[in-house]
Every structure is written in C-alpha cells, then in structure tokens.
C-alpha cells in the first residue's frame, strides 16, 4: 500500500529548473487525525534567503523536517537541490546543512571535538577538514577556545559554532529553524551578518523565525498558518499586496487599559503592542484618522498622539493571522 502511494508521489519527477533550490508540491503531513502540514506548494530559488514565518505549532518545523528527509510526507512531495527528498534522502542530507533553535551541539564535547565529529560525519578528509576547521574557528571567533567544553560557551558563541558545524561540508542549502531564539539583539545582528555572507557566496538559506525585524532581512517570505501557506512574496510585495489597511502608531500612558478598550471597539480592526507603542489597524476606511481619534476618546485616551505608519512585516503578520482566525472560526 505504501509503495503504491509512493509511486504516485514520485510521478512528477520534473527536472529541477535551473536556479531552483527547493520545489514543493502539495506537501502534506498528518499525525493521526491532526494535519500538521496541509498540502503546501512553493519554490525557493538558488541564493535566496527564504523566510518561513508562522505562529508556534503552525507546521514550520514539520515542513523543514520533511524537506531534510528526516520524516516522510503523508502525501505530496518535494525536490531539494534537484533530488526527491523521500526517495533520495541520504543524498539530500549530504548536501544540505541544518541548524535548529537548540543549536544541537554536543554540550559535553569540546569545540574541537564537535568540529571533528561533524567533519567526519560529512566525510571531510584531512586537508579539507583542516581548512574548514580554521575557517569556522575564525568565523565563530573561537580561536583559542578549541578545547573548551561547548556547554561553557555563551549563547552567541554556541550559535555561531552550531552554524559552523552545520556548514562544515559547505552545503548548497542550509535550513535554519529559529536560529536566533534566545540570543541577545546584538548577537542576532552579528549572526545575520554571517548569514548574509553565506548567501552572498551563493548558498540558499531557508530560515524560520518569529522575530519580525529579521523577516524583513529575507529576500522572500512565506506565511504559514495551521499548516497552510496564507501568503508568499517579497517583503515589499507582502506589504503592498496583503495590506491595504491603514496602520497607526499610538503613544499612550496606560497602554494596557487602552489596548483592552480598543480591542472591543467596533471601528478598530486590530490592535496590538509593538514595542512600547500600540499599533492600531483601522481597516481600509477613508477618514480612518478621525475614527481613531473618536475611538481613543472612548477608550479614555483622548488627544493621544497617533500617526499613520507604513505597515511593517509584523503588521502584515498580525493582520494575516487575525484574518485567518476570523475566517476559520466562521467555518
């Protein structure tokens, strides 16, 4: 039975178009009754930094695991670097890198032992290993700490070493599952510099994140919500296409009370915290600014300073998630 299904999945072995790193068709994963990924299709071009966004539990990690060939899809299929992930999983894994949010280093091994392990697993020979090791130690700023236990390193160092181990074999494609979670903003910025360097050298990056400022760093984005892709495009496309609503930034003293009041206001479409400020989505209505002033007065914040802003990726994200929640609850 499984074999017959597999044949159907394999039927479109279309040769990978030049410049396509990942090509996904109706990729589906079910765990019992629960559909983790519900038939997603998309393409990722070579050299792209492809951002994969979605709330927790929306199917991001499951999608990555299928693309890495560690779990088999229930139906549908994907070609990674021109190879079928289900049928040629081992060949795929030899050519990709993967870094998870846990950094997944052996904490009780030293820096050098971690490098030796992953270098050996990817079959690096003596001279190539020596060169890659030197490169990674320099890149991760770990020269002089080769014999330190990994568990004693700071989070930023661990993160860079994990990236080094994941790319020790110079893969053409790297999957990064929330690579910056739990890392301080400065280290996150440094880390993205490293990612830009990798991308500039022609490596395709597939990144999931829940930091919206990082999403803006991607060349293309896909939003996944409860196993479905609800929007896909460049950051600019998403901002202009998905978002005709007017967004206002409001500065008030008692943000929590005003937030609670505006949430129940009929004229306000969405309201949420953005940093220390409130972001208010007033929909596409003309005269939104006037309506907002009235709503603010009702919320007990009359005369609060509100200014219209260009929608950020975060605004788009909140908007898409709220829209999906609304539509799905109707059904």
């Amino acid at each position, binding site marked *: 039975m499984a074999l017959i299904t597999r044949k159907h999945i394999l039927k479109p072995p279309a040769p990978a178009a030049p410049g396509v790193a990942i090509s996904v068709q109706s990729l589906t994963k079910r*765990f019992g009754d629960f559909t983790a990924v519900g038939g997603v299709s998309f393409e990722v071009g070579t050299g792209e930094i492809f951002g994969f966004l979605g709330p927790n539990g929306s199917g991001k990690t499951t999608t990555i695991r299928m693309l*890495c*060939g*560690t*779990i*088999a899809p229930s139906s549908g299929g994907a070609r990674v670097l021109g190879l079928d992930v289900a049928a040629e999983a*081992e060949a795929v*894994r*030899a050519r*990709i890198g*993967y870094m*998870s949010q*846990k*950094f*997944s*280093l*052996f*904490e*009780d*091994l030293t820096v050098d*032992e971690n490098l030796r*392990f*992953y270098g*050996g*697993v*990817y*079959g690096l020979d003596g001279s190539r290993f020596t060169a890659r090791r030197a490169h990674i130690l320099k890149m991760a700023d770990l020269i002089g700490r080769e014999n330190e*236990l990994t568990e004693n390193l700071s989070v930023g160092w661990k993160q860079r070493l994990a990236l080094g181990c994941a790319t020790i074999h110079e893969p053409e494609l790297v*999957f990064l599952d929330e690579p910056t979670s739990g890392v301080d903003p400065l280290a996150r910025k440094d880390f993205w510099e490293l990612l830009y360097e990798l991308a500039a050298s022609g490596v395709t990056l597939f990144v999931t994140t829940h930091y919206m400022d990082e999403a803006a760093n991607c060349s293309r984005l896909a939003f996944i919500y409860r196993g479905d892709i609800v929007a896909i495009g460049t950051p600019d496309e998403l901002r202009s296409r998905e978002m005709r609503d007017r967004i206002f930034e409001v500065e008030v003293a008692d943000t929590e009370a005003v937030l609670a009041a505006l949430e129940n206001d009929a004229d306000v479409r969405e309201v949420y915290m953005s940093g220390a400020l409130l972001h208010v989505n007033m929909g596409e209505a003309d005269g939104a600014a006037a309506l907002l002033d009235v709503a603010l007065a009702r919320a007990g914040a009359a005369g609060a300073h509100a200014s219209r802003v260009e929608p950020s990726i975060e605004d788009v994200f909140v908007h898409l998630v709220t829209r999906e929640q609304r539509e799905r609850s109707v059904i």
Partner: protein
Amino acid sequence: MNPRRIRLLMWKEVLQLLRDKMMLPLIFVMPVMQLVMFGYVVGADVTNLRTVIVDQDHTATSRAITEAFSSSGYFRIVDRLDSEGAIRPVMDAGDAAVAVLLPPGMERDLAGGEKVALEIVVDGSDSKTASVASGYAAQVVASFERERLTALGAMPDGPGIDARVRVLFNPALRSVNAMIPGLVTMVLMLSVSSIMSQAVVRERERGTLEQLFVTPIGRAEYVIGKVVPYVGIAIIQTLSVMMVGVFWFRVPFYGSVWVMTLGLLLFMLAGIGQGLIISMISHTRHQAQQTTMFILIPTMVLSGFIFPIESMPASIVPLTYLIPMRYILVIARSNAMKGAGFEALWPQFVAMAAFAVVMFGFGVSRFRKQLAD
C-alpha cells in the same frame, strides 16, 4: 553503512560517557555496591546464632554437647541459665535466638541405654533464622550422637536407619555461591537496560538526535554506534563482577565459559531491547530511571534472584515465566555451580533465545520507526 561514521558515533558516545557525572557512578559504583550488599549482607549465611545453654545435668556429657554447639561455628554461647523458665525473658528481649536444654540425669540415662530428649528452643519470629537454626542444631546433635556411638563401638555397623544428607555442588551451603552468578546477570541487566535508555533519552532531550538525522548518518549506523559502546561496558562490568566473585568471594566455577557466554549474550540482547523500549516511553532521563525501577522490582522478586521460585505460591509461579532473568539465573547458577551444559539447560536456552529475539527485535524496530516519525 559507513564504518567511519559508526566509529565516530562510538567515539563521541564514549567521550560523553566519560564526562557524564550521573552516568559514571551508575556504571562503576552500582556494581560495586551491589557486590558488597548482596555478597556480604543478603548472601551472608546464618552464623553466630546467639545461644543460651540451660545445663541441668552438669556432667562431662552435657559439657561435651555444649562444646559441640559452640565449636560448630553456627552458635555462639552468650549465656548459661539455670532453669527452663529463664529462657522466655531472654528470648523476648531478643538476646538469644536459640536455647539448648540439657535435662538432669542425661549422662546417667544415656549410659543406661535409655532414650534422652534434648530440647532445642528456637525463636520463630524470624522464620528463616528459625529454620536454619533448627536444621543446624539437629546436625550438631546427630554428629555428636554418631561420634558417641562410634566411641562405644556400637551402632555404625549395626542395624538401624541412619539418614545422612549429602549436599551436592555446594557442600558448604554458602549462599554467596549462588548469589554471585545471579549478581552477574543483575548487573548486566541494569547496565544495558538502564544505561542504554539513559543515553538515548539524553540525546533526545538535548536535541542532538534531531541534528544527527539531518546528516548522512543512517538509522542503522546510529543504532550500532549507540549499542556497541554499551555492550562493551556491559562486558567489562560482567567480567569484573565475575573476577571479584571468583577471587574475593572464592566462588567456584565448574562450568563452561562458552555456555555462560552464550547465555549472557542472549540475555544482554533482551536487556538492550528493554532499554530501547524504556527510552521510547520515557520523555526525560528521570522518567527513564523510574521506569527502570518499576521493572526492576518484579524482576528481583519473581526471577528467583532473592526468593526461590519453588517456595512461591502456586498462583504466582506462572508469572515468573514472563521474567527473562528467570532463565539466565538457572543457566548461570547451574553452569557455574554444577557445570551443567546445553544438554541440561536447553529449555532455558530456548526461552532465553526467544526473549532475546522478541525483545531485541521489537526494541530495535520500534526505535527505528520512532526515529523515522
């Protein structure tokens, strides 16, 4: 299958093990503790029973019997009392477990060819001690009687029944001789199943398992790289327990190394399967430890490791057939103590092999399947 990757997996497993502060004690302290505990405490024979003598005869014969008790090694004379009535308070206080009552006129009656009743009172509150004590006491009296008659030139060649119990294989009835082979199997079981499950759960907890499977490492390579180091450790542990048994506790080994090795290998496979199954149903190392304990108790109680299966209630006995350790215990003890080989032990070997195939096969296949999901 790539030998280099398997070698790397084993190398990192050993490194991790050597740096694990929780695992090392488990591997090296546990067997030593068990050896000391079971070898000295549980396995200790009943000796030095506190004994009081009530000698109402005061003759050479009564003194000779007292001497026979105290020189037997099993009884230690702690007090001499004058009357039978004085026994009870001493026993109630727990100051004596045995009392020997030598009635007045004993020597005279014996010389007159009469039958003399020598009374032995045993504290029955500890049933094991009581049964052992009465057995020893009967032996002491019987051998005294034999010597007396021999000296008189009477009985030995004469008519009558003389029951002599001859203990085969373990003439000194040393419990430790049976305990050490049992301990070898117990240590083996604990190290493969407990340490193995700990190692797998640890890898999953830390997320390194997930990382390994996006590299070219295959499932079979991973399983081999994971299992082999622990098999190595189990072999070292088993050998050291055996060495301590033979050279320190002086346990004789009459058996065949091959029979013993094959039995232990089959048992080890079952243990590995058990460890893998535990690792699959446990999310944390703590849970894995508790699951191991949960299995350990019925294993110790029902396998015959501590309590003989023959003395269990008939309704419990069928349960013991479900405990893999039951079979290896028979193999290890009979082989070490009696030199029993395959021709005598084949039923146990068949059962052991069946457990090994089922548990190891189920463990590995479920483990591989879980890794795939």
